[in-house]
């Protein structure tokens, strides 16, 4: 091995985008993840949680909800009010349909993947038919005041549960009517604060599970409109929940960064009576856990701290220790830094701009591990803003440092950089 000069590059101020939502592809080991900057990533569990695909974000389109439908088609919806279908082969948006109800807060596909329901700002729930080559507006369901923050289909596709502020509703898909309206805050005395139902899940036995801003996870019998169980998991909000496919386990993410598992356990040995019990708490995140997903072998959570944590369920695993199977995605998996070796330049890629830096240099040599004094500080040479609302997908700098290239989903740009003493000029090619 030769001698190396190690640069401590502490001037790359990348702010990673937090995880906004997660969607597990049922019966296939794929996970779609949307970040707060609108980027969508797809992970393949079978291939060792490899980040297969990245669709760069778009300034105008944030993604509030993701879902898989009709096989392996991925749909996203956001506050722009549009439903977007992603082209997973071309890594770009393929189609875009306006929802027609203002910003979309939530979206869910039915179990067969033929219909999409969206929850809008204006309080309406709209159904879309998934057709080959796009989606088609089908009908409007009963509209009430208050934005629909979360949606869940009953596994039999006959009803939809929708969570709003202070209230949850159950809608009949056939008639389009609200068949039950439950005030989640009714029994809490003297509380003037509004209670936001952040997340909802409809179980096949008719139980509706909600997590709300009071930190409660509540189990409702929707037909009678009664509260079955209430568990306070946090003093802050419980933001997200996900149910396992067998409906015997629930994961809840809270704004304190902790996630909790609930399990449906028999009260007595051999008896049929079962009860939801809060079992394990996990504290992997430092900020709000906005999205959780439940695969058959793991609890998956993503938070505003931009981490994706895959926490396997030990009892379902056959081997290995706990640490060996716990996975955390803290760093971006793509190359965001490119280096011009000869010119001693670094190109940093941000979502909307590029930065070109000259590395510092020293004239001294020292022993291993010794910190050398710099004779020239690192220098910020250039900031290049990208045009248009699309985010930069990739970028590169030539070894001589005179060419800089970047591309978005639709366009490719090449620039020539000229150094004249202390001044630098950029020419678009």
């Amino acid at each position: 091995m030769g001698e190396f000069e190690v640069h401590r590059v502490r001037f790359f101020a990348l702010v990673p985008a937090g995880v906004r939502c997660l969607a597990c592809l049922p019966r296939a080991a794929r996970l779609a993840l949307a970040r707060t900057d609108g980027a969508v990533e797809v992970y393949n569990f079978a291939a060792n949680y490899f980040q297969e695909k990245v669709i760069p974000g778009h300034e105008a389109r944030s993604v509030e909800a993701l879902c898989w439908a009709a096989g392996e088609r991925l749909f996203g919806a956001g506050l722009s009010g549009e439903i977007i279908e992603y082209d997973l082969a071309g890594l770009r948006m393929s189609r875009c349909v306006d929802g027609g109800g203002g910003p979309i807060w939530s979206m869910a596909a039915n179990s067969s993947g033929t219909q999409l329901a969206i929850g809008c700002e204006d309080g309406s729930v709209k159904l879309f038919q998934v057709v080959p080559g796009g989606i088609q507006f089908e009908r409007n369901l009963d509209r009430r005041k208050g934005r629909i923050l979360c949606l869940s289909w009953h596994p039999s596709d006959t009803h939809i549960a929708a969570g709003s502020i202070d209230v949850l509703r159950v809608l009949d898909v056939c008639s389009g009517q609200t068949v039950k309206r439950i005030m989640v805050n009714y029994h809490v005395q003297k509380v003037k604060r509004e209670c936001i139902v952040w997340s909802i899940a409809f179980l096949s036995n008719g139980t509706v599970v909600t997590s709300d801003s009071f930190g409660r996870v509540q189990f409702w019998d929707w037909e009678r409109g009664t509260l079955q169980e209430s568990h306070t998991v946090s003093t802050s909000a419980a933001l997200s929940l996900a149910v396992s496919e067998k409906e015997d386990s629930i994961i809840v993410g809270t704004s304190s960064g902790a996630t909790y598992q609930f399990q449906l356990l028999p009260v007595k040995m051999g008896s049929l009576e079962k009860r939801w019990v809060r079992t394990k708490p996990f504290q992997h995140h430092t900020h709000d856990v906005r999205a959780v997903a439940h695969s058959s072998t793991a609890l998956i959570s993503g938070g505003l701290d931009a981490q994706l944590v895959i926490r396997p369920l030990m009892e379902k695993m056959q081997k290995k220790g706990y640490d060996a199977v716990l996975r955390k995605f803290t760093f971006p998996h793509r190359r965001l830094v490119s280096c011009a070796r000869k010119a001693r330049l670094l190109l940093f890629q941000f979502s909307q701009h590029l930065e070109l830096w000259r590395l510092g240099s020293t004239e001294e040599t020292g022993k291993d591990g010794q910190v050398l004094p710099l004779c020239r500080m690192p220098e910020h040479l250039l900031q290049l803003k990208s045009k248009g609302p699309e985010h930069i997908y990739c970028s590169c700098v030539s070894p001589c440092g005179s060419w800089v290239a970047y591309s978005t989903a639709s366009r490719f740009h090449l620039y020539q950089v000229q150094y004249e003493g202390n001044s630098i000029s950029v020419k678009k090619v």
Partner: protein
Amino acid sequence: MPVPGGSRRAAGHHGAGAAVPAGKMVAPGALRVVRCGGSPRHGARAVFSNDSKYLLCASGDFVKMYSLATEETLRLLGGHGGLVTGVQLNPHNCMQLYSSSLDGSIKLWDFMDGIPIKTFTVGHKLLALYALASSEDSVFVVVPKSSERDTFQLVSVKLTKAAGQDLEAKELSVVLDSVDASPKCIAFGRAGEYVASVKEVNLQVYFFKQKQLNRFSVSAVKAKSGNNHFTCVACHPKEDCIATGHADGKIRLWRNFYHRKEYTFSTLHWHHDTVMDLAFSVEGTSLLSGGVESVLVLWRNESDYQKDFLPRLGSAIEYISMSPDGAFCCTLHTDNRITIINSNLRFSKSIQGLIKSMDIKTGLVVDPRTKALVLNGEPGHLQFYSLQSDQQLFSLDIVQRQYIHQAGLKQVDLVKVAFSAQGKWLATVEEREEVTDPELQLKLWFYDEETQSFKLNTRINTPHEDHITGMCFRDMDESEDDSLLLVTAGRDCVFKVWVMVEDTDPEAQQSVSWSCDFVGSYHNYQATNCCFSEDGSLLAVSFEETVTVWDSVTWDLKCTFCHPPGKIRNICFGRLTCSKYLIGATDYGFLCCWNLLNCALEWSAHLNILVLQPDPLSEYIAAVSWLSKESSLFVFKPNEPRPIYIQRNLCKEKIQLAAFVPRDEPEMISAEKYLWLRRSQLFFLTDTQELMTLSTKSLEERLTPASKQLAVEEGLLVTPFSLLFGRHRRQQSQEDLGKLAVHNKHWQDSPAVKELLHTPAHVLPSASFLCPIFINSLLISKENKSAEEVSDEVEMESENTEDDSDEERDAAEMEQEDTNPMELLGETICKLSKSQDKELRKIRKMDYSWISAF
């Protein structure tokens, strides 16, 4: 029937056991060492009787039964030859109780009558006992494994149904191996279907029906949160849920534990230190936990966010138990206190005897007012312990600072206590244990008659530069305040004399305060002890190897005594006829007696004396020596070098403190050998904080049958009732002794009153029921009498004033009242209206012929 004083003592100390010195047959009349309080060492969780009226609690070698209504010790079930390690109600008969002991036997009791029904000899040390409703004729015990040391197993013992009292129970079958010795580490689950046992980091669950054993473990030591060893376990009464407490303060709730792999647990965490015990409520909806924080935590619905606290319980919680109806919960504490807590988590009652404190620095002091033993109690408190009732009279907060439970934190503690002769003044010294600069405070408390408690009068910061080693009041029986002096001896080589001075500050609320009057020293030696002679004229202060005697008026050094080598450990003056002697004990094992008149050594003996205690009411002095792991007692008179009484091998423990407690009435002791016990009783405190005394009574006399213990002897307890009647009686006897003699007799003889006074409060019917009976009993006697006396008087009166106006008659009656104010009957008549008066008179006239017949 012994004399009242003696019988009272027997009843008062029925909480005591009879420990006979080993290897010695006790001849009748010999002195016996009797344990009479302190150090009960609760070996197991307490048990409530089925109706939640009584609490049964293992206490040393006994099982104590307390009444929850009155907190009294009702019964003492004795008979085990070792520490009782388990008490359990018989699940098939709720009036019976099983108890197990280290002596290897299980006893079945009828606890309501205090009768041992059966004794099953198992033959191993029994460390814990569990009785289940589901197992018909067997109980579970923890026994040591015979082959290996320090390993224990849970076995079920078949209790044979044969006739006879003493039975062998040898049919053992092992249920679980390698269990922990603590009774808290095993719990039986819902309806006895499974048993859970914890040890170190392992949890074992054994299912009886399936014969399946599941083992779970938590990961061993984690660096950041300390060790997470299991400390206790409890099972949900209705569901399959096991709660375990851990050394790092966490509580884990295990579920689904019949699957070896898919088990799961959740965690509750509030305690910062070891969880000492756990208990589920009767329905299992809430969980109680306690630990060293002395806070009882109630967890509702197994939720981390719904918990309630009952803080400031005094000391660490050792065991928690629930009553079968869920109305009460009971916590046993490390300082021997028992606390009863309501179901709504409100403090209800506290049953406390001698509180075990960390370290008794104050010594045993007798409060002259209450005759209670006074010593360190809770941290920073002074406890007043009543020897008669085995109860704490009250606890005086001396330090008046919040005690913080934290290891290694130096707390202010009480180190010295002294009472003035009448108990009017109390002096206390508190210090913070600092090596370089001790923080000292001397406080003087005045007994306030109105509030019946001590009130702080003077606080002196840093009375000495270094630790205070001795403190005494000038013990004069006259209550003149100007003769009252306090002397403190310190390690800073001086002794100081404190006197009361008039408070000149007009804003001060009190008229007197204390200040320093004289500082004495001797060759710059550390002062170690001080004491006054009986008449208060001489003060003896020991300075390391030398005893100095000072005149207490002029503060002149009169003479010095020395018995090299060895520093002076204890000094005291002789009393009464022996007041010319000064006794001292030295480090090198000498007991010396100096004559103060000729300043010469009278005699000396080679003894390693730890405790030197003069009897305040007689010439006798008790000395306790410690030699080759046994304590011996010597009682002597200073004028004779030969001891009057020697008891070798008093007990195996080191005796740290002793005190003579004056008897209320001198006991009748015939043997000359024990005359020294006539006026006072001698109490010892061992280093395990066990209180012992010496008794001349034989075992049979002391352990009166339980039925007799319940009935209170005549004129015995100083209750408000007896005080009332006592005073009443005295007054009347002064007024007209002859007249009312019959009357009194009648009161005493009345079965209703007798019953009322002699029935313990907790079994009495309601007052509304008793009241008519009581009144009636009084009325009958009065009517008889009023007929006798009043008619006499009224007859005279009526002769005189028959024709007079009403006003005049009233005046006459007033007169009568003035002349005979204590005459109850006059008062009653005064209150009668005129019409009633006339009627009464008519009746009396009718009765006149009957009266004259007498």
